[in-house]
């Protein structure tokens, strides 16, 4: 038996062939090394994400999340739900809180769930992967399997919004959370100081209001460079994609020369644990992390 077991909620972006599939690959490698067993919630569905607010209405959105709770509870009793996507985590956790504090909402949700042949008894805890790493294992345990420290590499830990607000990681401040920096240091890298660690990248508005979002993304990347970072590291699939894929467009728009790789913490950990470029999902990075590819080959 694995030392820890969780009900895994990968979310739409982390499915095979989806935008954060490299996140999934690296999380799987990392969990294998750490002896964490993640069992996918059978037939889980999308949380709705923040952006669906206008079309969905409250009850349908909560019902979608409640369905995941019921499926997890029924099929994986006693296990906490773990999400890797900040938005999935937020959507689920928010739903859990509202359901637990509003009996009318709970009753209506149960009525809706019944249509899908499900019901809720106790809503499992809903946690982010990072919480599990820090709280259930701790930095010391995370350090133990490090075979190849990422010596001399400089990273800007970009926490962004939704892994940080409104819930965040226990014991961390909203304005300057340190956990990502600590994770970077745990695997031997250097976490640079810069002033846009928790700035919003524009979220879903990168699609609907690209000029505004790209202005925000530009400030983030510029600050990372100014801080001396060679790479950016994030805990959120949407932050990752936003900060990575628009660099070309931003360069055109602003005459900048951005070409900075944007990684997941799980990719760094996989590599430091001795994993290959493939196990770390490095191929999935649009801006290739050449330095890490060479490092993995060594």
């Amino acid at each position, binding site marked *: 038996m694995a030392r820890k077991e969780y009900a895994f909620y990968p979310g739409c972006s982390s499915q095979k062939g989806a935008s954060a599939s490299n996140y999934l690959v690296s999380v799987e490698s990392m969990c294998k090394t750490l002896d964490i067993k993640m069992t996918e919630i059978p037939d889980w569905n999308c949380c709705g994400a923040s952006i669906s607010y206008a*079309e969905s209405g409250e009850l349908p959105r909560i019902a979608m999340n409640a369905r995941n709770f019921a499926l997890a509870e029924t099929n994986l009793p006693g296990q906490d739900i773990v999400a890797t996507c900040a938005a999935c985590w937020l959507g689920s956790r928010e739903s859990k809180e509202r359901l637990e504090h509003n009996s009318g909402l709970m009753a209506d949700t149960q009525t809706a769930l019944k249509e*899908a042949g499900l019901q809720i008894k106790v809503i499992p805890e809903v946690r982010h992967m990072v919480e599990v790493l820090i709280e259930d294992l701790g930095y010391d345990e995370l350090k133990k399997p490090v075979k190849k420290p990422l010596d001399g590499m400089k990273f800007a830990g970009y926490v962004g*919004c939704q892994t940080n607000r409104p819930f965040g990681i226990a014991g961390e401040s909203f304005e300057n959370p340190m956990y990502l920096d600590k994770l970077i240091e745990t695997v031997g890298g250097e976490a640079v100081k810069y002033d846009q660690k928790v700035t919003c990248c524009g*979220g879903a508005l990168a699609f609907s209001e690209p000029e505004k979002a790209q202005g925000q993304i530009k400030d983030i990347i510029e600050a990372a460079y100014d801080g001396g970072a060679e790479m950016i590291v994030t805990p959120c699939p949407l932050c990752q994609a936003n900060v990575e894929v*628009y660099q070309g467009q931003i360069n055109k728009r602003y005459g900048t020369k951005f*070409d900075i790789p944007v990684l997941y913490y799980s990719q760094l950990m996989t590599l430091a644990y001795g994993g290959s470029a493939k196990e770390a999902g490095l191929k999935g990075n649009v801006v290739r992390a050449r330095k890490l590819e060479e490092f993995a080959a060594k």
Partner: protein
Amino acid sequence: MSDMNTQMADRYKNNFLKEIEEQAEMGEWVKMCMQCGLCSGSCPTNFHTGWDHPPQEIFMLIRAGKREEVLNAQGMYMCTSCYNCYVRCPRKVPVTHVMHGIAEYAYRIGRAPKNQPSMHLSKTFWTNATKNGRVNEVQLTQSLYFKDGIGAGIKKAMEMQSVALGLVKAGRLNLLEAVGIAHKCKDVKGIHAMLAKAEELEAKNKAAKAGTTGKE
């Protein structure tokens, strides 16, 4: 029978605050605002053009009964759900959710601006997500790029970047609509039945509230 907007305006007569409190998700929080302005100052989109009324102003206008100004405002559609305002508000107003709630209400009664890009995205996203139970996340430009990268074999970083650019320019919303097909839940039927019930109940609850007020 008049449209939703007129019906609601009639029912709530001159009490727009009450209308928002009863009809908009989290609208009951508006009265807690003490107008300190911290939310507006924290908002990343407040620095852009097009943001006519930041949260604090919207809340002020609601309390002043400025129904038209609020329903015509663009501000609430600019929200990125960054939760800066939410964690900073000294009165614990869940500002993000109130902004979403007002946007949803304006949309429901047919008052959201036509062709508002974020509204369109919201609609497209939810429709896709619920069609098959799962959506390929909004950042699917990247996933398409990724596929292209594998198909094309090993390419130089710069070449790959230009492919990304091409895809980004190719029209993101169309790409977004194309994905719902890729990933599916098994019990799509159950999900649809569940959502239909949820929509029915929500509509009933809101109508009940409006009904009581109407009879007062």
